[in-house]
């Protein structure tokens, strides 16, 4: 109902605009004195002032957005490289917000200040090499610093060293769900290919090559996968059908899954799921979400439908690359826990050899 009303209002607003503009025009016709359709001094004055008002509007939108929407942003990062990412992000943001504030101000203030007046002559000013040199070199220096900073951070994040201790996990994408594969006892992933997917009556859900001994103790899980805290994880990504993108926003991690090749990304989770649930930003967010869900549930139960379950925070793996109709619902839960809990969980999962028996 509210929806219909909103729509009706919007359509009526549209019609109103149309009508107002027609009336506007008719009233212009009546006067006949000035229908030149070229801006007059009065138009310049009005629009110049509106330009100034628009500057205020831009600032207002910016301040409102930061004030009101900052709370929806991602909480503190839960990976070792995350703080470096966040620092670079906020430094870049500070620079662009500064540049935005100044340049928009100058642009709109000039538009306001130099609004046309009859018989005033503009200042004939064609170029100024010093000035142009200065504003070429200043952005150049700033960008140079950002580039170097970015490259160093990028190098650190993308440099995947295969050290002994690292946990190797394969994230396997298909339309429209995820699976995770662990190397098992030997921490080595067995060879795999889509050719083997139909082996063992479809029980070979990620196509492990059963002739490779490394694969027999591999463990494949769906719905959720677990990571031990503070241990480096090397992810190997595969896809069986179309492009997908493994996006783990809380860890500042993303990599495409490409059929026919194996891509890699690595990070070290630093905050357990349980600890993240205690984070004050997350607590606030969960409370907000549950309030919304409670309100929505009231409407649902009134219509005889089931109420929504209360929400509890979990790390997420999402798909960020368009992949077909259920792209919007391709998810997996990530649980970060202590090494002990992780081992316990892992020991409860079936190995490949157990599954195919």
């Amino acid at each position, binding site marked *: 109902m509210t929806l219909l009303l909103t729509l009706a209002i919007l359509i009526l607003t549209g019609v109103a605009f149309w009508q107002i503009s027609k009336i506007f025009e008719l009233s212009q016709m009546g006067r006949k004195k000035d229908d030149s359709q070229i801006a007059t001094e009065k138009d310049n004055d009005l629009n110049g002032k509106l330009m100034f008002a628009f500057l205020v509007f831009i600032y207002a939108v910016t301040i409102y957005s930061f004030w009101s929407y900052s709370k929806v942003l991602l909480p503190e990062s839960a990976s070792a490289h995350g703080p470096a990412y966040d620092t*670079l992000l906020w430094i870049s943001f500070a620079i662009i917000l500064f540049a935005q504030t100044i*340049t928009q101000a100058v642009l709109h203030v000039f538009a306001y200040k130099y609004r046309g007046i009859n018989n005033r002559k503009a200042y004939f000013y064609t170029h100024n090499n010093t000035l142009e040199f200065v504003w070429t070199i200043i952005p150049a220096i700033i960008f140079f610093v950002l580039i170097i900073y970015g490259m160093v951070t990028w190098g650190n994040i993308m440099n995947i060293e295969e050290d002994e201790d690292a946990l190797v996990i394969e994230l396997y994408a298909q339309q429209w769900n995820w699976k995770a594969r662990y190397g098992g006892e030997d921490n080595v992933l067995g060879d795999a290919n*889509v050719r083997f997917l139909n082996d063992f009556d479809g029980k070979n859900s990620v196509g492990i090559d059963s002739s490779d001994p490394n694969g027999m103790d591999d463990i494949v899980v769906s719905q959720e996968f677990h990571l031990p805290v503070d241990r480096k994880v090397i992810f190997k990504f595969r896809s069986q059908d179309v492009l997908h993108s493994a996006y783990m926003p809380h860890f500042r991690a993303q990599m495409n899954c490409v059929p026919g090749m194996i891509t890699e990304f690595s990070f070290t989770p630093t905050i357990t799921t349980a600890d993240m649930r205690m984070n004050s930003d997350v607590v606030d967010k969960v409370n907000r979400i549950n309030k919304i869900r409670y309100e929505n549930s009231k409407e649902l139960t009134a219509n005889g439908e089931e109420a929504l379950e209360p929400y509890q925070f979990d790390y997420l793996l999402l798909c960020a690359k368009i992949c077909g109709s259920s792209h919007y619902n391709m*998810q997996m839960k990530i649980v970060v826990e202590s090494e002990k809990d992780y081992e316990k969980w892992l020991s409860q999962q079936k190995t490949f050899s157990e599954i195919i028996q």
Partner: protein
Amino acid sequence: MSELTSISHSNHDDHHHHHKETFITKYIFSQDHKMIAKQYLILGVLFMGFIGVAMSLLFRLQLAWPEQSFAVFDIFLGDWAPEGVMDPNIYLALVTIHGTIMVFFVLTAGLSGTFSNLLIPLQIGARDMASGLLNMISFWLFFLSSMIMLASLFVEAGPAAAGWTIYPPLSALPQTQPGSGMGMTLWLISMAIFVASSLLGSLNYIVTVINLRTKGMSMFRLPLTIWAFFVTAIIGVISFPVLLSAALLLIMDRSFGTSFFLSDIFVQGEVLHYQGGSPVLFEHLFWFLGHPEVYIVLLPALGITSEIIATSSRKPIFGYRAMVASILAIAFLSTVVWGHHMFISGMNPFLGSVFTFTTLLIAIPSAVKAFNYITTLWKGNLQFNPGMLFSIGLVSTFITGGLTGIILGDSTLDINIHDTYFVVAHFHLVMGISALYGLFAGVYHWFPKLFGTMMNKNLGYIHFWITAISAYGVFFPMHFIGMAGLPRRYYTNTAFPYFDDLANINVVITVFALLAGAAQLVFLYNFIHSMFFGKKAEQNPWRSNTMEWTAPVEHIHGNWPGEIPHVHRWAYDYSKPGQDEDFVLQTTPIQKGEIETEH
């Protein structure tokens, strides 16, 4: 060439005798650049633009009120919206076709087609394009391509739905989604024809600018509009063929069993035979066009803005040579930055560093342009005609949208906002809205030249201010839902309770989008009404310096009766000291004692 020389040497009387125009040769299969410009404007901008914008409003409704039933869905989507609820496949199709239409049909063909065609001959002092015939063929190929694209909307399984970037394997395998069947085939055919049309147009623009400038019109006396159109055409000629090759290879993979982009694929219980191809290769090919495409869209808009800001400030454009240098620098760099769309595609991370470097370099000439526009306003005498408002609006959105490019262009920062709404907000502001503003500015400014009548300025003011407010209302909050981690091209975000608190922001965005859509109706009304009933235009309504305003208001074949005027100065002698008027036409000889402006 003989035909060309005969045109440029013949005088006014000859034309009337030689060209007996019928309705068909004058309005339909016209070879006259002014008529072709109008054809592009009406088909490319008004018609295709209307469809492209309307589609965005449909999927915005779904995003604000997910899975609700709407009567408009029932009417326009029919079986694709059972009981008025939009189907997820059709959501993706709408997103795909919206992107395709807006980027290619409206902002490439519509924008360049209209203004390059109208202004290149008129501003350089030529009778017409180098080849009127190729120009006509270019338009009709565009027409054909548009019709095929629209026909794909009537395919039973729906039009292409793999995103406007049509990455395989999704676009290659009909088993993966309904939109990758006949709809995708039509998309590819349409785009192949589109590329042909675009190439014919671009070659014509390049040849015309190089060969047909009137006496005295040296390259450094060209208005910045022409520089922008000229360089745009060159980028188009360099990059569009690569899209054509990508499309052809994709057609081969789809229909002839080749494996250019496909390898190791298992769909619907079946192992497919494809071996050895790579989707990453397609991404390289696509973005080798795709990124220059951004500048193919943007440069003409910036050219138009340069011209209008100078004219309406009654001041020379500040730093003419720096502006030309920036256009050239942007054009060059635009061909070596495509990899920034692929930081996390699986390509070697070292390439990521290289592309970060080139990408942030391109921000420098862009910044120079923005600063030069702002300095042009300084101490001007600004005439706020609607075209000027949209030009200033362009500078504003170009800055806002461009700045977030510094974040996205940085490979490190791209990791966590790649394919989120942050990207959507960024490119809509910097190339979508900015280019549309340039387009609107151009329409308001050159409407008198196109149709001989003036557009209503008050409606123009209403159009601008509502659009300007809505554009920020739509795209500013969108950055935040992107930084909250919401990926783009999601049919709904209700599948993740984590995103529940973004729902109200989506409503705000949709309300502003609908408002913006309503404002475009004002423009449409103004356009059509002014075309037929607008006030008759004077020859040079904006008191501009460029040559098109020396041609008569009534369109004549060959543009100028009698000899083509010669050019004696650059295009920006506004408010030059020692002159009676605050403008001096480019065709006015340097007076005694006057020094030619050094620029």
